[in-house]
């Protein structure tokens, strides 16, 4: 029977720095990674990959590989053609005319990036499979390649997909307000052109997949290093033509993702197809250098931004134009990634006119897709760099220009067309400036300049707002995303005093088991250790939309809250029956129902619901409830980050001396976990600003193809972080939560580069392309001297 929910009070477990439940197994080496797993009859797969970025494939001969004693099978693309019922999935084609070329797990006619799979070998060991992969004979006719997305748009550029007649994948526009008129009226216009360096996500666990078939039943179990087991099941059933109900996908312990495992990959489809064809289990584990080619990259955009302002620095309109590399094919959400920033090019500032245009472009490179922040670091970088440029042009302090433009009324319908839920941007900025000692820093900066110190001091701000908690299904539909943005929770109060929580989100390092336990324990009056959180297995949790876009808590966590309401509503009926009173006479506070005379614990109700000996009429046995939550809005974290850097004008070296981050992520469930997310995000953002860049040569060879040449920073490269918080709970959900997974990576590149440019402003340097390596800094200084 349906019963009215009662609003639950939030108690002490929510907000407590509970130490993580996940840690113990990870600390003693007992985690369950895909690469650990073995099943009977398992064979190993290796993929033969193109060494050319663009080449016609004229011959593939797998016979020499088949002659290897340990080889089970070897196939070219043509051999496997009939395994595929469809292309690998792209779930977001942003316009009606978006070009989505076929993308099968192996390339047949042409290779379109270095690393494109052209054949596959199965052997009794991984080593034998990799040995035999080298025996496959592939003849290529190399063709000219194009790697820069702007150059790929030029007339006569080599085409990635000949049949399209263009490298343009789509152009998507958003226009609001009288932008042209506002620019005509502007007293000041500033323009910026920025490069978003291509990044390699580098989760420390390489990808891996294991598929075990049960041929008699047509069933398949796939263990995968994925952030998205549910999306993988839906989409791979389509690629393989396997009924969805016959496919079980399990994401066991997953060692980081950062977006790179928010995808559905050729190797997953290959393992499924080969397991079906050969009737035996197939396993594949990626090598790191292989992964740098075959796992998605992030960013790779050119951005242009213009601000229209009056002489005081009040911004009236923003115009932004982005050219974004798709890479050679569309992966799961490749075209949509730059659009996740489409509403944010005015940042935290109140403007009347807004125009955004993005053109997605195919290039002969590894496909791009989600990398921590996905579209929002790019937008934040452009507007925060442009605001600093505006301040510089007017000779004003960047703080003053920001304050002049901050949005101050919430909820706020922004010009770009969405509604920011809550925030207090001044409070965050005040706190950051206070912690930093902003005035003193400016004094020190001036003193250093005055005495000609070759080590300049720079102070950079990034007062960001972002949108996460993906997402209201209706909005996703309106922007042509193929799925909903809801998520699920189930609470099962077991008769013996413990609780199972099932969640449709799928963690890979974020500590959901702890956070979800805190929420359930708090609302239902259990100890945190009495809650067991299950996730990442489509047979255990059939419905879910998984983990990305800082959505887990803001969607899945809120679903948990509403499931708890349903548990309490049902338990109250049983409690009233037990206490011999009307349900309306029973109060509920954290695990205990209290009537006029007596009280009873929720745990005892769970037992009574299970024995079912004496339940009120119409009440089903068992104490279990589910909820599917579709958020009414995105959530909108914000904050002020401040970087203090020292730039050595003699060597070009940049050192981040201090990094202050004040974030408003709404209600904090676990400050230990939230701080960890912010730390890690900042580290990745600093890495984008100063260290990391995937570099291709003109022939499309990835020059940074391993961890020696692609610089993932280590401890000596990074500062300590000074963290603080403001808290404006989101009014759109009863927990008040927003999301924290990406804020650090969104805010920090702009803060760091603003600081570097601030340090060198007096030297005449106005911009430095990311990553600001010593060479780039030194060259910028030399150029400014001319």
């Amino acid at each position, binding site marked *: 029977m349906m019963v009215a929910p009662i609003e639950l009070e939030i108690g002490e477990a929510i907000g407590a720095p509970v130490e993580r439940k996940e840690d113990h197994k990870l600390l003693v*080496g007992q985690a369950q990674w895909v690469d650990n797993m073995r099943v009977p009859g398992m064979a190993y797969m290796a993929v033969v990959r193109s060494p050319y970025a663009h080449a016609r494939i004229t011959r593939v001969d797998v016979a020499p590989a088949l002659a290897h004693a340990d080889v089970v099978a070897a196939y070219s693309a043509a051999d496997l053609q009939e395994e595929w019922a469809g292309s690998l999935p792209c779930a977001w084609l942003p316009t009606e005319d978006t070009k989505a070329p076929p993308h099968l797990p192996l390339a047949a006619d042409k290779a379109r990036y270095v690393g494109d799979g052209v054949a596959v070998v199965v052997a009794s060991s991984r*080593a034998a499979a990799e040995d035999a992969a080298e025996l496959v004979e592939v003849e290529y006719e190399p063709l000219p390649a194009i790697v820069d997305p702007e150059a790929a748009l030029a007339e006569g550029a080599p085409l990635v997909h000949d049949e399209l007649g263009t490298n343009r994948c789509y152009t998507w526009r958003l226009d609001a307000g009288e932008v042209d008129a506002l620019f005509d009226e502007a007293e000041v216009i500033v323009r910026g052109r920025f490069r978003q360096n291509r990044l390699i996500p580098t989760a420390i666990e390489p990808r891996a997949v294991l598929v075990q078939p049960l041929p008699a039943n047509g069933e398949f179990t796939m263990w995968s290093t994925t952030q998205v087991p549910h999306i993988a099941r839906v989409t791979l059933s389509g690629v393989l033509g396997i009924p969805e109900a016959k496919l079980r996908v399990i994401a066991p312990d997953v060692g980081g993702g950062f977006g790179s495992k928010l995808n559905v990959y050729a190797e997953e489809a290959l393992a499924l197809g080969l397991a079906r064809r050969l009737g035996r289990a197939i396993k594949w584990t990626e090598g790191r250098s292989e992964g740098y080619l075959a796992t998605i990259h992030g960013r790779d955009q050119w951005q242009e931004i213009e601000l229209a302002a009056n002489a005081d620095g009040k911004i009236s309109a923003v115009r932004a134009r982005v050219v974004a590399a798709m890479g050679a094919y569309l992966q799961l959400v490749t075209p949509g990634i730059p659009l996740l920033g489409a509403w944010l090019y005015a940042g935290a500032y109140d403007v009347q006119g807004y125009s955004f245009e993005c053109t997605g472009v195919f290039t002969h490179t590894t496909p791009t897709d989600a990398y921590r922040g996905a579209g929002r670091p790019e937008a934040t970088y452009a507007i925060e760099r442009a605001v600093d440029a505006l301040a510089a042009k007017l000779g004003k302090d960047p703080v003053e220009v920001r304050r002049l433009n901050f949005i101050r009324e919430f909820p706020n319908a922004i010009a770009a067309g969405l509604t920011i839920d809550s925030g207090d941007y001044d409070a965050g900025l005040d706190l950051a400036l206070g912690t930093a000692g902003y005035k003193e820093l400016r004094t020190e900066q001036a003193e250093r300049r005055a005495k000609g110190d070759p080590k300049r001091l720079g102070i950079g701000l990034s007062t960001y707002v972002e949108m996460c908690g993906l997402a209201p299904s209706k909005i996703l539909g309106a922007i042509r995303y193929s799925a909903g943005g809801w998520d699920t929770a189930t609470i099962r109060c077991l008769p013996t005093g413990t609780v199972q929580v099932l969640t449709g989100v799928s963690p890979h390092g974020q*500590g959901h088991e702890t956070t979800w336990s805190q929420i359930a324990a708090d609302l239902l009056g259990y100890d945190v250790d009495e809650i067991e959180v299950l996730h990442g297995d489509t047979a255990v949790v059939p419905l879910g939309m998984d983990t990305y876009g800082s959505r887990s808590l803001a969607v899945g966590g809120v679903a948990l809250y509403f499931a708890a309401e349903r548990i309490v509503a049902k338990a109250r009926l049983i409690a009233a029956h037990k206490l011999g009173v009307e349900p309306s006479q029973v109060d509920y506070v954290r695990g205990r129902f209290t009537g006029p005379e007596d009280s009873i614990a929720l745990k005892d109700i769970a037992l009574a619901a299970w024995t079912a000996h004496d339940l009120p009429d119409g009440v089903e046995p068992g104490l279990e409830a589910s909820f599917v939550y579709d958020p009414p809005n995105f959530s909108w974290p914000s904050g002020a980050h401040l970087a203090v850097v020292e730039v050595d004008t003699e060597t070009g070296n940049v050192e981040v001396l201090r990094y202050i981050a004040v974030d408003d992520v709404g209600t904090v469930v676990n400050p230990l976990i939230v701080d960890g997310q912010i730390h*890690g995000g900042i580290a990745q953002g600093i890495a984008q600003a100063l260290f990391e860049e995937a570099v291709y040569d003109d022939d499309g060879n990835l020059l940074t193809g391993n961890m020696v040449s692609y610089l993932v920073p*280590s401890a000596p490269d*990074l500062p300590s972080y000074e963290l603080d918080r403001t808290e404006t709970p989101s009014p759109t959900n009863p927990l008040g939560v927003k999301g924290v997974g990406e804020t650090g990576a969104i805010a920090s590149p702009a803060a760091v580069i603003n600081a570097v440019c601030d340090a060198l402003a007096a030297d005449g340097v106005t911009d430095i392309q990311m990553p600001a390596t010593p060479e780039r800094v030194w060259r910028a200084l030399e150029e400014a001297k001319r």
Partner: protein
Amino acid sequence: MTHLELTVNGRRYREEVEPRLLLSDFLRHTLGLTGTHVGCEHGVCGACTVHVDGLATRSCLTLAVQVDGAEVETVEGLTRDGALTALQQAFHEHGALQCGFCTPGMLMAAADLLARGRPTREEIVDMLSGQICRCTGYEPIVRAIEQAAAS
């Protein structure tokens, strides 16, 4: 195949291995000691760090046959009585792990450093230049090792 005899976490093993087999693969797939992780296979990330005769060693850059007769310690050997060591406990308290994939290598590298005396913060940070973590931003790891060093 080559005959190999060694001690891992105090237990003797006698195995026949291919000469080209990496120590990391030998530990993980021959012995089933999957606590040692492989993150890059070219000696950069440090996830595969184990102790060979007491010294922190990249098991992905070491052949199994090279450790014939040696004493190898892996993360599974840190907690033989089931209780976390002070170092592991400090990692837990400071949030020094998130996905945890780099953690066994971090622990083995840090244990090696701690065995040589009480390191300064600078020495800890310097040691960590050989261990890549993508989740934490390192600060909690540094703090955890500092705490373990003090205990």
